């Protein structure tokens, strides 16, 4: 059960959504599973982040029907969100590489 690195949640959400439309719950599940249960997304952080990204125009939200036939809010990336993901990815690679290099010394 790991703590989320500050500032990375937005990037992880964008990355997760680059695979297609998802609702909040599945986003959280996906991040958790994809990180082998290391990263755990708190609801208290997830929804404010989703709404923040939506307000910024990086995500688009639509109401749809979930697998179990319930009304759910599905998020998708906007082109703007896709560009933002690229920026974030590049930035993360640079920072992570730098941190790794420092830690390797």
């Amino acid at each position, binding site marked *: 059960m790991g703590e989320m690195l500050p500032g990375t949640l937005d990037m992880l959400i964008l990355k997760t959504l680059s695979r297609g439309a998802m*609702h*909040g*719950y599945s986003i959280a599940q996906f991040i958790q599973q994809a990180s082998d249960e290391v990263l755990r997304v*708190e*609801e*208290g952080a997830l*929804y*404010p982040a*989703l*709404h*923040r990204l*939506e*307000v*910024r*125009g990086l995500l688009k939200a639509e*109401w749809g029907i*979930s697998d*179990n036939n*319930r*009304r*759910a*809010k599905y998020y998708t990336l906007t082109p703007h969100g896709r560009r933002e993901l690229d920026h974030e990815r590049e930035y993360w690679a640079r920072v992570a590489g730098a941190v790794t290099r420092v830690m390797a010394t």
Partner: protein
Amino acid sequence: MIPFLRRLAALFRRRRLERDLDDELAFHLAMREQDYQRDGSSADEARRRARRQFGNVTSLKEQARDMWTFHPIETLSQDVRYALRTLRKSRGFTIVAVVALAIGIGSTTAIFSLMSSVRQQALPYPHADRLMQLWGNVMRAKVERRGASYPDFTDWRSQSTSFDGMAADQDANAILMSGDEPERIAVEYVSSSYFGLLGQEMQLGRPFTADEDAVPQKVAVTVLADGLWRRRFGSDPAIIGKELRFGARAYTVVGVARAGFKGMTDSADAWFPFMMSGSPDDLASRGSRGFVVLARLKPGVTIAQAQSELDTISRRLERAYPNTNAKRGVEVSPLDVEVFGALRPALAALMASVVFVLLIACANVSNLLLARSEARQREIAVRTALGAGWPRLVRQLVTEGCVLTSVGAIVGIAVAQGAVRLLLATSPVSFPSFVNPHVDVRIALFTIALSLVCGIVLGIAPAIHARVSRLAEALKDASRGSDGRRSQRLRGALVVAEVSLAVVLLVGAGLMIRSVQKLSALHPGFVTDSILTLRFSVPLGNTPNAQPAGAPTGPAVSARAVLEKIRTVPGVTAASLVSDVPLAGEGGATFYSAEGQPSTDAQTMPRAYVHRITLDFFSTMQIPITSGRSFVESEMTATSTAVVVSEHVASRFWPNETGVGKRIKLGSITSNAPWYVIVGVVGETKYRALPENPTADPDLYLPHLDRSRQMAVMIRTTVPPSSLVPAVRAAVRSVDASIPVFNVQPMSDLVAQQTAQSRFTMWLMGVFAAAALTLAVVGIYGVMSYLVSQRTREIGIRLALGASGREILRLAVGNGAKLIGAGVVIGVAASFALQRLVTSLLFGVTAADASSAAAVAILGVVALVACYIPALRATRVDPLHALRYE
């Protein structure tokens, strides 16, 4: 930018957003619950776990919501909603506060809109700031306005460079002969440039050309006002080119002015070229002055520059024409001052009064809010404990104040609309016809700003109080009984402020009432009760309508015959003809000379007002004859040499004699005018204006000439004058049905017009003072009741220890009396200090008047009663009950 727009859009679908958020989180919970159930938890267990996992839903929602909102606006709307809720809950308080604020804000808005309708920009002419009136003045002991003569006017126009243009403008009357009945209308003789200077276009036809105003015309031209055109000619579009008869002259209609334009006199029905205003001889005489000149400054030229240029021209004219232009100057006066000047000081004083009323209303509501914040101390303490900072609390309190004042302002604007209309309709002062106060952007902004300022002012007292009250103490019940010293002082200060403001207003109203009293008690030198006045004009020739446009010779009927007929009307005890009605603003001054007088110059040359009268004018008007006699029948001829003068003439030239038998003549001593012999001396009268004639020039009375065609009748009656109007009209008609009768009015109406402005100010000041008094008394009563209820326990103990009711009364009333006393002292001091603001409105009184003492006494008594009632209640306190109280 995009996020901003999204948030903005979100503002308008707040409810939907809220529901979506709920749904989204519910879905999340359901999914998690489902997962737990799949893992083997029972349904209940799964729900609990899911909830626990989820944490604080409300705070999460709040955070998510924050993403969508503008923080300050949202908290503001929260505050407003909260304020509305609390105000709705305490309905009584809200109603009282809103009514007080609506009175304050409404009356302030009403007076402000009146003030704004008499500002320079309110003149309905383009470039109003550059429009001036030019007056030919005599530099006598007191500068005296006389107007221009035509030669003066043309010299000013041709020699000056400061002006875009100048126009002569003389008001007069004319008899319109079209239709069945001749009608007397108000006209203006104007230069051809007049309409252009005022930016007036015609709705039909054209204005005058310069040619039409160059020399007197045989068939002249006229421009009609919209009102006359509609009323008399049924808006006939073919009126242009038609010929109309005004008096003996024919005029061709060349234009119809736009609706609403009634000339500078604000009453004109038609305009004629200035050249038609008199004979060529009159127009060429530099010495006969009497009309006003309208001029427009060139852009960028200041009034001072124009004035100094005209001063130079005046000196040049003085050298060139010493006989007529010695000691004469020109005064440049802005048009807006001429039109609105008389109204402004009164409105300024009223504005000050109404602001006082508003302040009292605010003090009252502030007091109520303070009392409420006392009651809400626990609520405020709880909010503080939950982390609301002082600034946040202040904001909440100020918001509450602003919500109150906004509601007050909305009601107030509605009140103001009605009040202004009522005011204009009932005002004894006539405002120019184009004055139309209404709520426009300026007024709305003013009211909004005003209500915000008041809201902030209202919030301050409770906010100070909130800062003072200590959290821990407020939360403990025990402290509820006692009021903080500081908040008591705050209340005291509010009472003192209310009392002093009310004193100032009451003193002001008292002074106005006294002024009006003194004005009405003023004896003008003639009787004003039971006198009816009217004017009529005798048509030319025998049968006016059939008269060919030839040369008419004389009046169709004798005015004396009309007079005799009027005398036979039952209820009439005396009647007399006179050339001009007292106080009606008619007639003009003339130079005269007395035999053997010392030599004079332009500044000392004797001037007098000449009135032509029949024998019994003095007895009708009850003007005392101090020596000699009135005219006798044999003197009622054109060749008569008898004259009656007023006392100043006799005392100026023959201080030790009565003056009877001495000789005077009109014009200069060297003129070849005939000598008149003084047969009688009568008392001075305020013939021209109340409370004082504009100048000290005396009156000369000459016999009425039967060949004059326009005259007035003064009728003394034994019954109320207005009741005789139909009978008198019928009497005139029975002599000749074609005689137009007009300006029929009791003398008392003319007197009333002279005192109109004072009465207008008096009424409004009185209303405001009454409002102030009421509000202040309500405020004092509220505070005193509160203070007594705060001290119920203390009073109970005192009573239990043997204090008498009288002692308790003294204690409670004494408390209030101290505050009232302080307020009265400050108020009286302020009244004296503010006195000079209203001196121009007062007549014969100062703040040291007895009415001021009365005002203070009224306020003192009423205020003490307001203290006494709650105090009396205190003495009825049951000690046992009081000790258990709380």
